[in-house]
């Protein structure tokens, strides 16, 4: 059906940042060169992804086999770029550029140690993310998924203190534990059931396998919990734990790359491993829907009670991720489309929020929501961007979040799941409840008495404020120009 273009572009897009890592280490003493390397790699990567875009939008897919497989053995590394992968790659690689700028401002602003290691592992993580986006079979997907878990561990534990150690342990325990304990057996079971085919191309892998509902349910659960980066309860606690990381890490990795890799994998499982038809026949997706719905509501409630701003954002992320899982588990075309779009919309919104949290910390050292009173006056840009980010995540016009939520709700209506539709609506209200008090406090509450009244504007360094402004503007622009996203997601849902 879709014509295939063979090209090594996906490989190079992946390698761009991986090759940058040694260069970053090499230039460890030339700070300018080191930072320049990051930027060059980021732009090259973005450029390579963009170069593939016209091919994808014209309805073709790009394939590239790095290592061949033999009889019954799956090719270990196979790249395949389709609409969904393209969408995710675009989001991740464009935000890397912004985050690099932000990270430089943040890390220098706080005089963090071991910045070389930080930037090197950051680059490797990005490679892994694009690897997941372009993975052409389950094995490649799993390979880069694990690589991402491991490459982000030094970033999460960057501070190397006790808190970082605990957070890092939780992080790896959950991510590795579930991926080895659930995803790997599920993968091998799929391999057996499918008769040696794990490729995402063509029909869904298990489309023609004989699979009972019980087996199907266990397999689906194993996949969804196995890819625990998607943060479905009860395997979500790594995400708040990982908030000990420096903010740029939280921003790009734990609002965009890592968590989105999780939901990306879940979407792949639904669409390319099982296939919507098989799941509809088995009728097991509802179980996932309800787990996701539960996660959405509960995490929103928890988020309300968090005083630490980053933790509040983390729980909000957990909820938003389950939006996506819930959407795809509804199995209706619009909901799946909404899920895919939400990857991008939420990424822009949430990264803005994290950037703001970091900028506040850099400028004032404040971490808690209760300390933010009156901050809107001294940091108008930051808090303004925060408001836009909050609007986008909640789904208030004119921000991109509205569009994806609209599709999700539409999909829920299509699927005749009105209880789940209500979940979307209720949780959107809850999102508002835990975000807007922050905005309100910043802009309309006077600064506490004890603090010396700061006159005028005292923003974080430009390198911090510029990126968050860009992503905030991006969130708004996505509302007005969602054409590309719609096109890419239509490719996927249309292709099914």
């Amino acid at each position, binding site marked *: 059906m879709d014509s295939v273009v063979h090209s090594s572009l996906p490989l190079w897009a992946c390698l761009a940042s991986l090759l940058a890592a040694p260069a970053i280490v090499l230039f460890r003493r030339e700070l300018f060169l080191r930072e320049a390397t990051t930027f060059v790699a980021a732009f090259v990567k973005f450029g390579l992804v963009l170069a593939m875009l016209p091919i994808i939008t014209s309805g073709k897919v790009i394939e590239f086999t790095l290592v061949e497989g033999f*009889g019954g053995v799956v090719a*270990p590394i196979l790249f395949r770029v389709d609409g969904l992968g393209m969408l995710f790659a675009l989001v991740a690689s464009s935000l890397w550029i912004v985050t690099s700028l932000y990270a430089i401002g943040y890390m220098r602003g706080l005089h963090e140690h071991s910045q070389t290691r930080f930037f090197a592992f950051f680059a490797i993580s990005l490679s892994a993310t694009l690897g997941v986006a372009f993975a052409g079979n389950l094995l490649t997907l799993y*390979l880069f998924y694990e690589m991402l878990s*491991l490459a982000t561990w030094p970033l999460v534990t960057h*501070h190397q203190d*006790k808190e970082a150690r605990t957070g890092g342990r939780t992080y*790896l325990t959950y991510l590795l534990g579930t991926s080895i304990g659930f995803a790997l057996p599920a993968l091998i079971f799929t391999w057996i059931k499918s008769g040696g085919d794990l490729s995402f191309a063509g029909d869904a892998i298990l489309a023609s396998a004989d699979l009972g509902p019980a087996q199907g349910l266990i397999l689906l659960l194993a996949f969804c919990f196995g890819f625990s980066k998607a943060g479905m309860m009860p395997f979500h606690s790594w995400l708040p734990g990982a908030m000990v990381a420096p903010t740029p890490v939280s921003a790009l990795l734990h609002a965009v790359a890592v968590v989105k890799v999780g939901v990306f994998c879940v979407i792949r499982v639904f669409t390319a491993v099982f296939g919507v038809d098989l799941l509809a026949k088995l009728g097991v997706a509802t179980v996932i829907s309800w787990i996701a719905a539960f996660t959405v509501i509960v995490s929103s409630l928890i988020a309300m009670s968090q005083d630490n701003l980053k933790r509040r954002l983390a729980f909000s992320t957990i909820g938003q991720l389950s939006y996506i899982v819930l959407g795809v588990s509804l199995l209706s075309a619009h909901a799946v489309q909404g899920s895919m779009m939400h990857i991008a919309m939420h990424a822009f919104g949430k990264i803005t929020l994290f950037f703001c949290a970091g900028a506040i910390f850099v400028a004032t050292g404040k971490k808690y929501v209760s300390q933010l009173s009156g901050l809107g006056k001294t940091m108008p840009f930051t808090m303004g961007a925060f408001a836009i980010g909050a609007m986008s995540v909640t789904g208030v016009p004119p921000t991109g979040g509205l569009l994806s939520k609209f599709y999700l709700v539409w999909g829920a209506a299509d699927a005749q799941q009105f209880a789940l539709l209500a979940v979307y609506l209720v949780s959107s209200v809850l999102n508002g409840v835990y975000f807007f008090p922050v905005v309100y406090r910043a802009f309309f509450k006077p600064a506490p008495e004890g603090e010396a009244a700061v006159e005028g504007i005292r923003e974080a360094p430009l390198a911090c404020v510029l990126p968050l402004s860009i992503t905030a503007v991006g969130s708004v622009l996505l509302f007005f120009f969602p054409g590309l996203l719609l096109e890419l997601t239509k490719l996927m849902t249309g292709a099914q």
Partner: protein
Amino acid sequence: MSEQLPAIILLAPLFGALLTGLAGNRDHRRCFPILISALAVSFGCAIALLVQVSQSGPIDYFVGGWNTERVPLGVGIQLRIDALNALLLVVITTVALLTAVYSFRRAGEENTEKTPQFYMLFQMLCVGLLGITVTADAFNLFVLVEVSSLTSYALVAMGSKSRGTVAAFNYLIMGTVGASFYLLGVGYLYMQTGTLNMAAIHEILADPAFGKSSTVFVAFILILVGVWIKMAFFPLYGWLPNAYSYCPSTTSCLLAPLMTKVSVYVMIRVMLSIFGADWVFQSLGWSHTVVWLAVIAILAGSVLALAQVELKKMLCYLIVAEVGYMVGGAWLANHWGMVGAIYHILADAFMTLCLFIAANIFIKHCRADRIDQLEGLFKRMPLTSTGFVVGALAMIGVPPTAGFFSKWYLLRGGIESGQWGYVIALLVSSLVNAVLFFRIIEIAYFGKNPAESHDHAHDEDSHQGQAGEATLLGGEGRPATVIPLLITAAIVILLGVFNAPVVEIIQQALEGMPVVGAAAAAR
């Protein structure tokens, strides 16, 4: 020339050993070049043989020209190289060569006066291991097992640590019991069949009248128990941890990857080439029992590893667990289980080598062998740490390392045969390995115990960071130790990424066999 390769591969280290004895005693510096060139010749032969075998099938070599045209099979010593042992030959020679490079100067420091003796034993061990691999004669196998065992007892005992000597003694006692059981088993086989050639025995046993005899049954049990002792299969592992952790570092790098793996090969060879897969799996019907034993071995090895405070001891217990992987895989009685077991022999050899070299470098530079003394290593030795991490990831089974793919195939075998206990044991052991290695990585990465110095952690670390960055490679060991480590790490990854051709060769080796052949899997 090329038809003599099977002999040359054995003769090169044998003559190397003799030459070392003759020339090396006067001047110790002559030993190393002799060692390297002998092993390089073997390595070249191994590669050439692998190419030949994968292109044109098994090679039969009759020592002294006593071939089947002149005399019947079983007369004259036969060496037989098929796809299975050609792969193993490459592994053995590669590991030996890398260890030889590692031993440069190191062996001299560890055995000051006895460097030539050490290198002679080193090469004799290689002769033994290569011989075990290529021989097609059940009794010769015993002799060569003893050649390799005797040299390894001496190698273990050569260290300066007196605990190593005691460990060597226990190793010797257990090893002799194992070899004797094997010999006894061969005796029973000979009673029943009147021949010692593997293929000839196999032919006779294919006759159901012989296959059902209790003598054959007893022979199989004796051989199996003997080989299990040699490979340290739980609960017969008692000799291994002390012997491998108190011996000189070069010795541990050579023994740990090879000895147990070659013993596993012997088991597989006995199962497939002497008794035959249909006899072992169908007439005997022991698969379930042995796989459960393997499950216990895997779990016990992992738990015992968890309890260790010394780095090398911990690695040794992991070997016990890994042996469980391979025995279990081989006894799953299906195609993918056997493929996984054989692939794991290759993968595990390099993984173990990688970890042992790294551990030895760590231990030498920290002058400590406890895990909690390895603080701050990542800053001081980034390259060695990288090698260690690669080995650790392979042990955990993270793609794309070789360790992942062996688990991949073993798990498939386990699921297909419905041995869920084995599947769960593999996964649990992966998780335990993750805990084990991240405990070490954490200590090595975090530098100090943060619980004690929480307040100052930040400043001091940044200070250390600058110091560390100023001399990035200043803390590394000497190149002769780090380079083999990095090569091994690269092999671990490449073997994983390019596992398909290797698996194809393994499948070629199993082709046409009942139960474990690819055709049996397709059914």
